[in-house]
Structure formats: structure tokens, C-alpha cells
């Protein structure tokens, strides 16, 4: 972000403490100023912060630097057009009283605030539906509070009826039950999931149906919630890497890269050129895998099973290549802070090129089946449309946002790892229907292959690790032969990488959209707090907007087209 942009933001908010962190602005406001600040950020045409990325709470109970209040809430908001990012931090004197909601400004605030309430117990005044989202509804306490013991598990098993929620949704949609009674029609309530072949995981999609048309829809998530953030607070920075594999397991290594990139950005580590290129190759290769999985599953939902094999055969072969490159097929945990676990083997370029050709063939075969297929067109074009404004309001990023016609891609707009020097296009849809979402993913596969080919051509030789032994393990020869190396090794293994205290947010264009990490560091080897901004959490938050008024079969293929990954959704 340019310095002028920072000045521009700061000048609009006299009397509010603004400071520059990394390449964005952090503002600290008082609770009474919050509503005013947020609505200015959203509504001022020069500011136009239309994309609420994330809301998270912070519990400063054990933080070494004394704070005014125990709790704080942080809003991460983006202006995608001018590439401006701002974080608004507000201390919360009384969590039970809380802070005013911002659901009227951004629809994505609905689920984001519910998550903060669930994890920290911070109230949001005026929130339409403040209840737990990730944890079970019978869960007692708020797990991300520092005084909640990590070993204190709870057994909850009663299912939640969601009766009130769907009734409210029916009311909001203006469904008139008395008229329906007059013509002897009754609403049928149907649970799609949590275990249903179309959910590709465990999500409960609760629908109110009139025949096969969806009148109202509410969703329950959290079936795969495993407390990633709480676990991360009790691991060293490098120990968190294997956990990030499990976020979006279809493109596991992108999460590794996004995570270490975020840590490195705060440590100020500039990784080596070769490492950058390796990361670009792997993240684009995993983007291809992610899209292959998504499209294949989506077309299976549509009944086109043959596409599944054309695409999955290539994904399967790609995993073999990935296991040769990284040592593991799915969850490779291949990155380290300051570099990569190891270099690629000799001659990997040839194998990669063979695999890329195979992928191109598989994708082209699948496209030949669907591109001009009338049934596919009838089913996907014009169904489950989402306009650009609604998509932005719900915090959509990535292919789903681009399908709605917003050409926002962090690789272009906020480039990292030399992405500015690669020649690639950002495919954009026009209407935001299912067809656009599928075709944007198909096109991105070809664009990613283009990037990989360029990166393979220009990848330099050299070390893959930086020479900073406060962050990177020294080579074994040094560990065994000199005391300094042994001390570095010992400290890094036992205490972890010492990260200077502070708070920062860093993001990465993952296969599903903007994958962000919000850190609070206290100077020790473990993150004081680590919040993931998972792209598909917010996409799922807008699911009901897409499917209401459509048919039950459309809801199923829509769920496939937005690529909901349970590991990332529920963390």
C-alpha cells in the first residue's frame, strides 16, 4: 500500500490513533467511536472499504504488556479496488455489554461476530442472531479465553433444532403460511446433511421446501471444529505448520506457505529467490489440485460422473509427483519459517512438465464434455446467482468473488513472491452463477499451469534457507561440530522461533480466496494468538442468499461450486 493511501486514510480520521503496520493501517478507536469509524470506512466514497475480511477478538489476560482492557475486537477491512487494508481495533471494557454490531454495514459480520461471541464471549449489541457457531450449542465457556484450560474437554451430543432460525428466515423472506394452508400446501423441512453425499464433509443444510423449491435455508457448521486456534497457541511457530495442512486439505501446502509467509513478514525475513520460486510452483500446483477436486466433485453432484475420473485421475497422478517432491501426498508440511524443508530432487522439472501436460489433457477432455453441453448450461446458467455487491458484502474472495465479476486477486493487486513478474490473467465471470464459478476455476487451472511453466523456466539455483540461525535450524554439521550451532538448534527446538511482540495480519491468495492470518505475538516462541481468516467460512455465510428461491438440486450443485472445505470452515 502506498504511503499516500495511508495518509489518505489517516487524514479522514483526525483524533484517532493511526499507525502503519507492515503495509496496512491499524486504527485504535474507543468503543463509542466504533460505529462512526466503521460506517465512515464503508460509506465514504474515497474510502469505500467494502470487504470486511474478518473480525476477531483478543484476550490480553496473560499478555506481558499491560493493556487498558482485557478484551479487544479487531476488524480487518479491505478496499479491493485501491488495494487498501485497514484494521480497526477497539478495546472492550465489558464483554457482556460488548460493542455495537456492524451487521448492517457488511453481511459477513453476521458469522464473524458470532464466531467472536462463541470463542471469546464478547457481546455484539444489535446482532440479529447471536449464538454459537463453531462450538456445540451446549458448550459451556468460551474456549479462546486465556483462562479456559486447553485440556478441559466437554461432551455435547444433543442436536440443535434450528426451528426458530428457519422460522425467522421464512418470515424474512415473506413466506405466507396461511395462504399456503388455504391451498392445502405445507412447508416441508428437510435436512441436507450433516451426513449427506452432497455435503462432501459435514455441514447441516436445513431447508424449508415448497415442493422442491427452497423457501428458506439456514446452515449449521462446526462439525469439524477441532480448536485449531487454541492448539496453535500452545505450539511453537514451526509446530503450527502441520496443523495448517489440515485447514484446506485439498490444497494443503498453500496453507503452509500462507502461514510461514505471514510469520516471515513480521520477522522481516526476506527468503531466498529459489525458495520464492519453489513456493510459487508449489502453490500454483496445489491451486490446480484444489480446482480439480472442486470441479470434479461439482460435476459429480450434477451427475456427470465421467468428469470425476478425467479430473481425479490427474489429481491422483499429481499426488504421486507431490509425494516425490515433498515426501508426502496430502499433508506435506513442506515449509519452514525462512525456507523449505528441503530442495526438490534433480530432474523434477521434467516430471512436472509431463504431469502438467497430463492435467491439460484431462481438463480438456472434461471441458469437451461440459463446455457445450446443453444440460450443463440449463442447470448452471442463471442458477444460484450472486451479484458483485452481495458477494463483497458477504466477504467473498477468490474464484467465487471473481465469478461475480470482481477482478480481485491478491497475486495481482498485492503481489508477493515476484508474482508481478509472471504473465498470467485473472479470469472473471459476468453473472456470478454456478456456470461462472465452474468456468472461472477451469480457466484458473490453465493460468496456474502457465505460471508454473514460467517459474520452472526462471527458477534460480542457490540456497533454500536464509542464513539467520535465530529463525532457521543450522545444518547438522554445525550442530554436531560447534557450540553455537548446537545452541541455536537447542533453542529453536525447545523454545521455537522468537517472534518480537506485536500484532499483524498477512494474507495470501489461496485456492478458495484470501487466506489471512492474524497474529498476536508476545515475544516468546509460541503465538499468543493466531486467528485464521478462512475464505470458505465467509462464502458459506452467504450460502442461503444463493439458494433461496432455487430448487433442492441447485442447492446441491451450488454447494459444490463454492468449494466448502470442512477443515478450513470449522477449523
Amino acid at each position, binding site marked *: 500500500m502506498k504511503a499516500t493511501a495511508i495518509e489518505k486514510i489517516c487524514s479522514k480520521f483526525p483524533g484517532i490513533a493511526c499507525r502503519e503496520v507492515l503495509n496496512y493501517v491499524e486504527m485504535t478507536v474507543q468503543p463509542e467511536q466504533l460505529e462512526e469509524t466503521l460506517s465512515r470506512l464503508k460509506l465514504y466514497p474515497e474510502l469505500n472499504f467494502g470487504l470486511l475480511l474478518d473480525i476477531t477478538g483478543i484476550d490480553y489476560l496473560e499478555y506481558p504488556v499491560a493493556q487498558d482492557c482485557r478484551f479487544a475486537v479487531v476488524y480487518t477491512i479491505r478496499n479491493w479496488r485501491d488495494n487498501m487494508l485497514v484494521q480497526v481495533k477497539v478495546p472492550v471494557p465489558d464483554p457482556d455489554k460488548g460493542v455495537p454490531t456492524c451487521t448492517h454495514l457488511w453481511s459477513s459480520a453476521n458469522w464473524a461476530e458470532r464466531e467472536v461471541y462463541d470463542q471469546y464471549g464478547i457481546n455484539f449489541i444489535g446482532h440479529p442472531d447471536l449464538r454459537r457457531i463453531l462450538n456445540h450449542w451446549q458448550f459451556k465457556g468460551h474456549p479462546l479465553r486465556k483462562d479456559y484450560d486447553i485440556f478441559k474437554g466437554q461432551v455435547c451430543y444433543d442436536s440443535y433444532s434450528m426451528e426458530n432460525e428457519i422460522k425467522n428466515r421464512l418470515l424474512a423472506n415473506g413466506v405466507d403460511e396461511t395462504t399456503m394452508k388455504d391451498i392445502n400446501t405445507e412447508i416441508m423441512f428437510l435436512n441436507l446433511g450433516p451426513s449427506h453425499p452432497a455435503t462432501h464433509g459435514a455441514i447441516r443444510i436445513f431447508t424449508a421446501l415448497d415442493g422442491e423449491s427452497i423457501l428458506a435455508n439456514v446452515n449449521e457448521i462446526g462439525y469439524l471444529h477441532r480448536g485449531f486456534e487454541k492448539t496453535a497457541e500452545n505450539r511453537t511457530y514451526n509446530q503450527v505448520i502441520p496443523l495448517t495442512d489440515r485447514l484446506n486439505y485439498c490444497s494443503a501446502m498453500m496453507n503452509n506457505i500462507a502461514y510461514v509467509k505471514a510469520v516471515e513478514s513480521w520477522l522481516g525475513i526476506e527468503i531466498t529467490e529459489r525458495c520464492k520460486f519453489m513456493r510459487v510452483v508449489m502453490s500454483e500446483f496445489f491451486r490446480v489440485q484444489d480446482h480439480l477436486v472442486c470441479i470434479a466433485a461439482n460435476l459429480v453432484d450434477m451427475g456427470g*460422473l465421467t468428469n470425476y475420473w478425467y479430473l481425479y485421475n490427474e489429481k491422483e497422478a499429481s499426488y504421486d509427483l507431490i509425494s516425490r517432491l515433498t515426501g508426502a501426498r496430502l499433508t506435506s508440511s513442506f515449509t519452514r519459517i525462512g525456507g523449505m524443508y528441503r530442495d526438490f530432487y534433480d530432474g523434477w522439472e521434467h516430471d512436472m512438465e509431463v504431469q502438467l501436460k497430463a492435467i491439460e489433457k484431462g481438463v480438456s477432455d472434461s471441458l469437451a464434455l461440459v463446455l457445450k453441453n446443453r444440460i450443463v448450461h440449463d*442447470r448452471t446458467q442463471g442458477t444460484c446467482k450472486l451479484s458483485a455487491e452481495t458477494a463483497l458484502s458477504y466477504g467473498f474472495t477468490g474464484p467465487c468473488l471473481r465469478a461475480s465479476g470482481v477482478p480481485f486477486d491478491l497475486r495481482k493487486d498485492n503481489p508477493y513472491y515476484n508474482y508481478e513478474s509472471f504473465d498470467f490473467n485473472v479470469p472473471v465471470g459476468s453473472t456470478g452463477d454456478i456456470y461462472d464459478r465452474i468456468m472461472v476455476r477451469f480457466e484458473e487451472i490453465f493460468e496456474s499451469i502457465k505460471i508454473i511453466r514460467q517459474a520452472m523456466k526462471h527458477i534460480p539455483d542457490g540456497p533454500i534457507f536464509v542464513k539467520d540461525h535465530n529463525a532457521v535450524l543450522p545444518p547438522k554439521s554445525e550442530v554436531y561440530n560447534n557450540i553455537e550451532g548446537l545452541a541455536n538448534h537447542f533453542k529453536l527446538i525447545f523454545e521455537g522461533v522468537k517472534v518480537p511482540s506485536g500484532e499483524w495480519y498477512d494474507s495470501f491468495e489461496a485456492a478458495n480466496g484470501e487466506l489471512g492470518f492474524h497474529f498476536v505475538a508476545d515475544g516468546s516462541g509460541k503465538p499468543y494468538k493466531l486467528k485464521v481468516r478462512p475464505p470458505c467460512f465467509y462464502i458459506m455465510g452467504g450460502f442461503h442468499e444463493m439458494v433461496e428461491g432455487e430448487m433442492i*438440486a441447485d442447492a446441491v450443485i451450488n454447494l459444490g461450486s463454492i468449494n466448502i472445505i470442512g477443515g478450513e470452515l470449522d477449523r
Partner: protein
Amino acid sequence: MSLTLLNVIFAVVVAIAFAALNAAYLVWAERRGAGRIQRRPGPNINGPFGLFQPPLDGLKLMAKQLTIPGGADKILFVAAPVLSMFPAIMSFVTIPFSEMIVAHNMNVGLLMIFAFASSGSMALLFAGWSSRNKYAMMSAVRSVSQAVAYEIPMLITAITIVLMTGTMDLMEIVRQQGPSILHWNIFPLLTNSHNLLMPFSFLIFFTCTLAETNRAPFDLGEAESELVAGFHIEYGSMGFGLFFMAEYANIVIGSCLTTILFLGGWHPPLPFLGFIPGVVWFLLKIYILIATFIWIRWTFPRTTIYGLLNLSWKILIPISLFNLLLTAGLLKVF
């Protein structure tokens, strides 16, 4: 009298055997064909080319317990799979495989087959209704509306044939289509009607057969991605097995009927090929049609219920009605 009874019993036994064998080995053919299309082997472990797979699957299904969900209508639940298999087998009785091979020819054979085919959708309705499952019920509703929508163009097309041939006797319909491909009802250039739209009628009839047998792209009854398995969601064991077999038996019936009505039955395409027995031609034709069924299934995605109904009511029915009028007019003129 007793001879006729024996004859009928023998015919039914042969029909059951034929239907069951066909159903079993069509599953194998379908899986191998799907494997071919999808670049994977398909069943190839048990026996040569995996040919022992179907009997082993059957054995496994028979060995399983038939569970009846709580709250289900027990009588209907048990009766439904039997009812679905029954019309499929009964229809075989009147199918002429050649001039000589027919179990029991009757002068209303076409009517009988349509009567039995219609009762097949009752079985799906019973199954869906009695399972006490929302998915099964939605599937049953879908299946019935689909059956109603597609029986109409199918019947109209069949009536066109009846007009052209002047009979409902299946053997007579075939006899009139000899001796060469130009006498078949699909290209009736040398017969009395000269209707150039008959290839469209054939396509309509074939499409309706796809829909009537609940095959992809019209497999909305058992749409596994949204309705999980549709009307047989609660069935295990041989209850499921019977539904499965009935589906394939229905495919065979549909192919037989298409062959008889449009493709000249047991007649060879050219008269000099007459030295090959008629039954070979008949079986060849139906298996080519069945292969097309399989090919279509693994090529096209599923339609939606509205797309399906629109296709029938807005496109197929008007075209087939027009064709019926045209045929009637042409018959009057020539």
C-alpha cells in the same frame, strides 16, 4: 388346455431366466463400459474379465438381512420391489425374438406391454411412500410425474406405428417391416406411409424409453447427489437387488420394444443377410441400443425435474402429436 398352461409356465420361467441373466450381466457390462469410458478397469478381479462378479454380488445381496425401517408400511414396503420386477418379467412373454421364438403372442401385445410398463411406476410410488423417508417420498413424486409425462409422447408415437401397420400384434408389426432397412419404421420409404418424420419419432421414443426406465440423464428418481438414492434409499439386501434388476430388465424391454417398433425386429438390414437367424439380428439390435443407453449414461449429467418435464410437455408431446396427424394424413393420401 393343460398344454397351453404348461406352455405359459415354461414361457414365464424362460422369461424370468432371461430377465435375471440379462439384468445381472448388464450390470457387469455397464460397469465394464463405464470403466472403459472413464479410463479405469472396472470389475476385473473375479473370474475372467470379472465375469463372476454379478453372481457373487447376487449372493452377497441375498445373504444380507432385509431391514424394514421403523414406522414404515410393512406390507407395501415388502411388496414394492416384487411389484417392480413383476411387470418387467411379464412383458417378456409377448416379445417376439424371431418368427419362431415367442412365448405367447397375442393380438394386443403392444397394449399389454404399455399396461405393464405403467404399473411399474406404481411400485416406485409404493416404495417411496412406504419407506417413511422424505427423500424417498420426493423421489416417488418425481418418478410418478416423470412416468406420466413421458408415457404420453411414448404412447402417441406408438399409436403412430399402430396407424401405419394397422395392428397391435407385435409379430405382425415386425412382419410388415421386412425385408430390408428401407421397410423399417425408422425410414419407412418403401412402406405405405412415406413419412419422413419417422426418424424423429424414433428419437422421441428412444428418449422416452430412457426416461421411463429412469436412466441417466433422466435418473431423477434416484438422483444420488440430492436424493441420496431416492425411492430405494431404505432398501438393502434383495429388496434393493430387485429394484436394481428391474431397472435393467426394463432397459431390455425398452430396447426390445424400440427394435420391434422401429428397427425391423428380427429382419436383417439387407435381404441377402437373411441366412443369419432372425434371433441373432434381434439380439444384436437390442444390445446396440443397450450399449447406447450405457454410453449416454456416462456422458451426460442429470437434468433437473423442471427441465425434464418441460422437455416432455413442451417439445416431445407437440412433435409427436404433429407426427401422428401427419402420418394419418399421409396414410389417407397414399
